[in-house]
């Protein structure tokens, strides 16, 4: 082989390294880094995730429309479900996209607001629990890498605060154009959900 193929070791290393680029795995989700620690990262996470925000707004409007008694139950049911769902998501994280389900959840909430639906308390709380578990699960699945349960507590706190503020406002509204404005807001959320389902179907 004298005078045959003579390749420099550095070039061999480069040739071996190149295919490694193609084998590189995905970098998993991470939280927004606020610089204030995991709790605030989790808090900001909810604020910066449109589907979570739309669900919380939709459910708060819905529960508020159903009256103070229902809103009180929902106020504690949602953050509880969110936290439990988050723990489940952190324990059993999945890469599967649940975007269709999360879109359906806030879309249905918006439609219920637009229709001014008044189902029984139990049905409202059940819907809030299912939606909270779902979104909490997605949160837990996505923030598990590099985040602590403190981040989940931050996300749950954001959920509770936003829900409490909005639902209290809606509960206190008197009949009139402000109630109509709430229904219009619900129709906007539902319409955005419908369009989003189309985008998801399109891929």
């Amino acid at each position, binding site marked *: 082989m004298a005078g045959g193929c003579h390749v420099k070791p*550095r070039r061999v*290393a*480069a040739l071996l*390294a190149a295919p*490694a*680029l*193609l084998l*590189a*795995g*995905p*970098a*998993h*989700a*991470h*939280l*927004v880094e606020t610089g204030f620690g995991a709790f605030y990262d989790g808090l900001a*996470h909810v604020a*910066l*995730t*449109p*589907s979570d925000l*739309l669900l919380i707004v939709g459910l708060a409007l819905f529960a508020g429309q159903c009256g103070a008694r229902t809103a009180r139950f929902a106020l504690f049911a949602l953050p509880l479900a969110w936290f439990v769902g988050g723990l489940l998501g952190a324990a059993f994280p999945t*890469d599967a996209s649940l975007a269709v389900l999360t*879109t359906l959840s806030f879309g249905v909430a918006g*439609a219920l607001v*637009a229709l001014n639906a008044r189902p029984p308390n139990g049905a409202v709380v059940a819907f809030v629990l299912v939606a909270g578990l779902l979104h909490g699960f997605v949160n837990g699945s*996505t*923030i598990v890498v590099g985040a602590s349960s403190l981040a989940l507590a931050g996300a749950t706190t954001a959920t509770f605060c936003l829900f409490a503020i909005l639902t209290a406002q809606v509960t206190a509204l008197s009949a009139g*154009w402000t109630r*109509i404005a709430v*229904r*219009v807001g619900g*129709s*906007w959320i*539902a*319409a*955005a*959900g*419908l*369009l*989003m*389902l*189309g*985008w998801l*179907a*399109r891929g």
Partner: protein
Amino acid sequence: MSRRGIVAVLLALLPIVAIAHEEAGQAAGFVAGLVHPVSGADHVVAMVAVGLWGAVLGPPAIWVLPVAFPLVMALGGLMALLGMQVPAVEVGIALSAVVLGVMVLAEQRPPLAVAAAIVAFFAIFHGHAHGRELPAGTSALLYSLGFVIATGLLHAAGILLGVAHRWAAGRQLVRAAGAGVALAGLIFLWRAVVT
């Protein structure tokens, strides 16, 4: 480049797919959605006319129409995204301005169900034409939300204009606005048929 440098570059390239949790293009998507309905005169005049007609009809139509329109419009967008064809979309949009403008001009007050059905019918065309025009690299959800909100605000502008209908002079103003919408619709119809 030193060996250490090569290793550093390779490490930097390692995550080929960053499944970042923060969605990309959120602000751009929302702004694009907000701007999109305003960028087309055909959409603007028809949306304002919905609000004007609602004001002419009075309660409960004044709020039923703006609640129903975005939902049915989104349904039209969903149909477009699912590949379902709607014939003569541009003609339908132009006709929506003509019909709604005439309704305002003539101060027509059909039963609520009929008014809602007319508005819903035309909403399909608007949603089908405009709901699927997502700029590349932007958030689909926030684009959709911005699009729906802008449409709703155009309804609100029409309703606010329509408040003038309570007064005699304002009534003529609202009717004149209806005539303007119908005229614009005829121009759009001409363009849609000729081109």
